[in-house]
């Protein structure tokens, strides 16, 4: 039983990482109908940025992390302004392929930057090694911080969307950008903010993941596992993304413990296919109704 709970908790911590990346997927998709295939690469960029600030520049962990998240957020907004803005009105598939291209570029730039390259780096967190123990259950301080941060971030986002004018405006453009713009909402700037927030979420995920799984150019693939998380939660629901991420993380962890070798690596995708087999438009999807 203890072992089971242990797996659940460490799975939940990894699940938070997926949840944050999934949050980014959903934020962008909800507002712009774009499926950002480069989300995982943004997470990797966040990890590398944190590595640079903390290890290479020697800044304190918390400061480096915040700078990393901020710089990737700016990068996300710049991506929107420079590239994605031009694709307004084109087919979703075309924009999706653009994000594939962006992902390629981000990955290649990381590999080409002399300080980074294709090596694997370790980015230890300041709480490395410390553990909390609750009657037989061992939680590493890293995991505890991840869970706590997630709770904070979720609450902050919830309050933001519910009670601030900016949050309200973002919900408006998600539902009906044209109407929102008629009402005076600056839709363009808001799209950039959505991309910035989404990139920030990915970067935060990267910062949290780095101590656990090291920093390397192929980290983006881990981000792809957030896609099952997003689909599980319903691709247009923010709380759903968090729940979906946790579920995927926990399922993975349990699969690693109880199932034969290799199942853990694809557990997320198996869950996804099972969900889609039953509900081809995601857990909470609506069928496309076209009026003729």
């Amino acid at each position, binding site marked *: 039983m203890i072992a089971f709970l242990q797996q659940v908790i460490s799975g939940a911590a990894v699940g938070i990482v997926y949840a944050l990346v999934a949050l980014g997927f959903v934020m962008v998709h909800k507002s712009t109908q774009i499926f950002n295939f480069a989300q995982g690469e943004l997470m990797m960029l966040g990890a590398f940025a944190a590595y640079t600030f903390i290890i290479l520049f020697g800044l304190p962990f918390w400061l480096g992390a915040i700078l990393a998240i901020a710089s990737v957020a700016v990068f996300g907004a710049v991506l929107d302004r420079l590239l994605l803005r031009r694709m307004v009105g084109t087919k979703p598939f*075309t924009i999706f392929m653009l994000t*594939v291209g962006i992902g390629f*570029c981000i*990955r*290649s730039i990381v590999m080409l930057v002399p300080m980074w390259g*294709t090596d694997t780096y370790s980015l230890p967190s300041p709480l490395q090694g410390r553990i909390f123990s609750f009657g037989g259950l061992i939680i590493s301080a890293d995991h505890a911080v991840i869970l706590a941060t997630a709770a904070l971030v979720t609450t902050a986002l919830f309050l933001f969307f519910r009670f601030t004018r900016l949050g309200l405006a973002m919900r408006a453009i998600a539902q009906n950008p044209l109407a929102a713009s008629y009402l005076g909402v600056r839709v363009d700037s808001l799209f950039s903010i959505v991309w910035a927030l989404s990139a920030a979420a990915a970067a935060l995920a990267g910062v949290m993941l780095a101590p656990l799984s090291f920093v390397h150019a192929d980290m983006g693939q881990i981000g*792809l596992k957030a896609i099952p998380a997003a689909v599980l939660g319903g691709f247009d629901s923010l709380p759903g993304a968090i729940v979906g991420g946790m579920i995927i993380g926990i399922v993975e962890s349990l699969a690693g413990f109880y199932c034969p070798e290799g199942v853990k690596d694809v557990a997320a995708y198996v869950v*996804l*296919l099972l969900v*889609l087999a039953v509900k081809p438009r995601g857990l909470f999807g609506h069928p496309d109704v076209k009026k003729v």
Partner: protein
Amino acid sequence: MSKKSELVTGVRDLTLAGLLGRQRPVAIALLVALAVVPCFHSGYWLSQLTFVAIYAIAGFGLQILLGFAGQVSLGQAAFLASGAYVSAYVERIGLGAPLGFAAAIFLTAGLGLLVALPALRMAGLYLAIATMSFGFIVEEVMARWTSVTGGNAGIAIPAIKLGSLSLGQPWQIYYLSWALALVVLLISANLLRTPIGRAMLAIRDSEIAARSSGIRVSRIKAVAFGLSAAFAGLAGALYSHAIGFISPDQFTIAMSLDLLVMILIGGLGTLRGVLLGAVFLVVSPELFQQLIGLFTSGNTEVAGLRPLLFGVSLIFVLLFQPDGIDAMVTRIGEWVAGPAAGGKR
């Protein structure tokens, strides 16, 4: 009042010559060039051109599924893996290469039909995600099913044996690959001039209108999946012989993405675009490395150049030339033929 003869007998695509149209001289020249390459090159460029043919075959499959029928697939690598491992297995147990290739084609087609079953109800985003997941799962299965696939260590692929004949020479694989590529090209072209291909295009553009014209959408989609998987399986079998060694880490999402990038840069929806895209995919990384090597001293084997090249090219094409290299070639052709043609068609 249109001339009676103009429509029926003048319809271009009912003959092979008509299909090629004004491109006929260029096509013939290219065919001749392809045929004599082995007389001049035997090493690197011969194998590069072999891979152009192999990727073109897989590309025709993806074009049928995505460019014609509008179904997004991020998991084509799984079908190539299936073709490679099936043919390797059949040959290993002594049943010979022709059967190996046939098995690769038909079993992979069956796999494609299996995938089609749930895929019929999915569209766009979810279909892409589902096929991507399928790709990851197949990759893992290949790694774990060691009795058949040899697991992560991979397996060596011996030369093709036809009776006492051994087709292990690079030039033999080259001719085989191109012969098959041309057959696949012809079949794909036949799709476009018959009801089944038109039905696929219809489904891509408007499922409602397709249904109201009597098209059984599920059936046509299934054909698209099966055909695309069959071609990918054939490509996989050829690939294994061209490389001589296969392992699960060759058939990853990277390969699926490469194929996608290939037909997008080449030209979505066109057959010529597949060939152009395959040339781009195989040849440009090498050229790019050489180019960079001119500026950086010596070290040209830099990881990260390939994704940079593909990423930038893809973004460029999508922003400025969404119809791909194919559209550029058409424009060049019109410009060249302009003064001589002296008027429209």
